């Protein structure tokens, strides 16, 4: 009679929950604590950001300040300054269009079909020129707007894009120079790369913005904006060079030998054999570097540029919106989050896909 076979009960919903969250007393405590924290945070956040928040400008700042929740009116009232800085009011559609161009360009360069040297150069060249023409004007009947009037998100994107545009080729050059067989070239380059990497970005931006004018003849000084971009590109390239070099080390030595045996010259070997493979190896790390670099663009606020952070400070800093700093920072953080999060998710996706295809 003891030999009755009992079919195991189909695990119901409840049983499943119990097993996942309440398997042991410790697990149960942990689950409950986490749940409590989550409910508390989500409730607080929703209450502040949605339920008790003010969304319209109708009541003015005073009514808004009196409300218990967030005062999104400040965004409604000041979004133009955050996005466009001091760009002339009637021309701000150009600034908006320029931002769209950069976003489109970024999305395009995430598509594998564009991953050949020529196509990616084309996309970035076209995107950046379009951005520049739209922002600066002076042609095609667009009114001229000097760089000193650029600001907000558009300036942030401009600095980021030009940093990459200059820094990326520079990084490839540095990587090639560092792995040169000629000892003096590789040593000197190594010194430059390691030197730049050991310095904080702020100090480099400061040097390029403030100190470099002393060390350059008048005709070479250029605009402060472009000097800072150059500094930021140099910093980017020092890090990216090591990533590219890592990618090159992943290319079998036999590849270069085969190319040599087929009679290819140095540049032919580099451009046709070495770089295509090295860049593929380095892709996830490269995207990660882009993410870091995008976040670091915000540091130019310290050397006095009116990019999105500074324009955010200005948006709440003057007059009646003084109290609404949390809302403004939350809004800017959200903008950064959208860019950075999607890019880094894409990087993670790529990494996973590559590690699968290797198997």
């Amino acid at each position, binding site marked *: 009679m003891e030999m009755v076979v009992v079919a195991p009960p189909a695990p119901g919903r409840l049983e499943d929950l119990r097993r996942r969250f309440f398997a042991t007393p410790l697990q149960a405590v942990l689950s409950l604590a986490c749940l409590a924290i989550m409910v508390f945070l989500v409730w607080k956040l929703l209450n502040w950001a949605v339920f008790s928040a003010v969304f319209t400008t109708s009541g003015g700042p005073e009514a808004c300040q009196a409300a218990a929740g967030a005062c999104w009116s400040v965004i409604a009232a000041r979004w133009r300054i955050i996005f466009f800085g001091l760009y002339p009011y009637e021309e701000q559609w150009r600034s908006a269009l320029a931002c769209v161009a950069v976003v489109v360009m970024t999305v395009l360069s995430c598509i594998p079909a564009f991953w050949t040297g020529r196509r990616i150069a084309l996309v970035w060249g076209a995107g950046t020129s379009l951005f520049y023409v739209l922002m600066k004007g002076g042609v095609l009947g667009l009114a001229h707007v000097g760089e000193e009037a650029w600001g907000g998100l558009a300036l942030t994107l401009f600095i980021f894009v030009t940093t990459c545009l200059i820094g990326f080729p520079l990084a490839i050059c540095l990587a090639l120079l560092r792995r040169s067989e000629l000892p003096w070239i590789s040593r000197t380059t190594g010194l430059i790369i390691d030197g730049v990497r050991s310095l904080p970005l702020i100090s480099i931006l400061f040097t390029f913005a403030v100190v470099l004018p002393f060390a350059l003849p008048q005709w070479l000084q250029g605009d402060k904006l472009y000097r800072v971009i150059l500094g930021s590109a140099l910093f980017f390239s020092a890090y990216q060079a090591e990533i590219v070099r890592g990618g090159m080390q992943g290319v079998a030595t036999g590849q270069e030998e085969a190319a040599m*045996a087929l*009679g290819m010259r140095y540049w032919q070997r580099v451009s*046709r054999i070495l770089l*295509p493979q090295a860049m593929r190896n380095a892709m996830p790390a490269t995207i990660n570097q882009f993410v870091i670099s995008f976040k670091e663009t915000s540091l130019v606020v310290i050397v006095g540029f009116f990019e999105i952070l500074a324009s955010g400070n200005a948006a709440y800093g003057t007059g009646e919106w003084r109290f609404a700093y949390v809302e403004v920072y939350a809004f800017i953080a959200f903008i950064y989050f959208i860019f950075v999060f999607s890019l880094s998710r894409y990087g993670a996706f790529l990494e996973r896909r590559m590690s699968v295809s290797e198997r």
Partner: protein
Amino acid sequence: MISTNSTGEPALRIENLDKYYGTFHALRGINLSVKRGEKIVVCGPSGSGKSTMIRCINRLEQHNGGRIEVLGTELNDDVGNIDEIRREVGMVFQHFNLFPHMTVLENCMISPMIVRKQPRAQAEATARLYLEKVRIPEQAMKYPSQLSGGQQQRVAIARALCMQPQIMLFDEPTSALDPEMVSEVLDVMVTLASEGMTMICVTHEMGFARRVADRMIFMDGGDIVEEASPDEFFTSSRNERTRQFLSQVLGH
């Protein structure tokens, strides 16, 4: 200038070749002369300098002493000479070294196009011709990773032939292959030999050597120990080291 049809001078002349890796003396005063159309098979124990020698011929290694003359052109520090010689000397590696980011066809076309400046149509026609010759025309659009080892090595041979070289170097082309794929590669090499290509092959495939070689070369310790016709080499070698090596390679 490399002359294409003078028959007088040898295809390759090596005199007192010395090669050092740091302080290690890898090649000790090698002398070798190869006539046009001649097939040389080089064998010898591992580490005896076989690869080093044939890699010196197209300057994958730089020699430290002696002379190398390929098709009448001296291989020295002159960049122009190096480029010329590399165009005329094809090489096949142990590990194929196909370009993984290109299709088989592109692998075969790239060098004729960018080194010999051939128009695309002509390069493609040549590539298809040689792929036919190594008996894999249907794989032209695949990537190397989609092919078997034997197929990859045949593509590598076709790729080298597409440059229409006058001399072919083979560095153990079959030793990275599974046994059942060895013969398909050797068959291609035999065909190539029968068409009169000048070949220098490092290989331990003694059946192939017997069929194809005009001359056998046995290396040991960075030196050429014995140089003989295949008949002499396999049946009545005077050298103790050679006989010992042969007994190991051929089995007892």
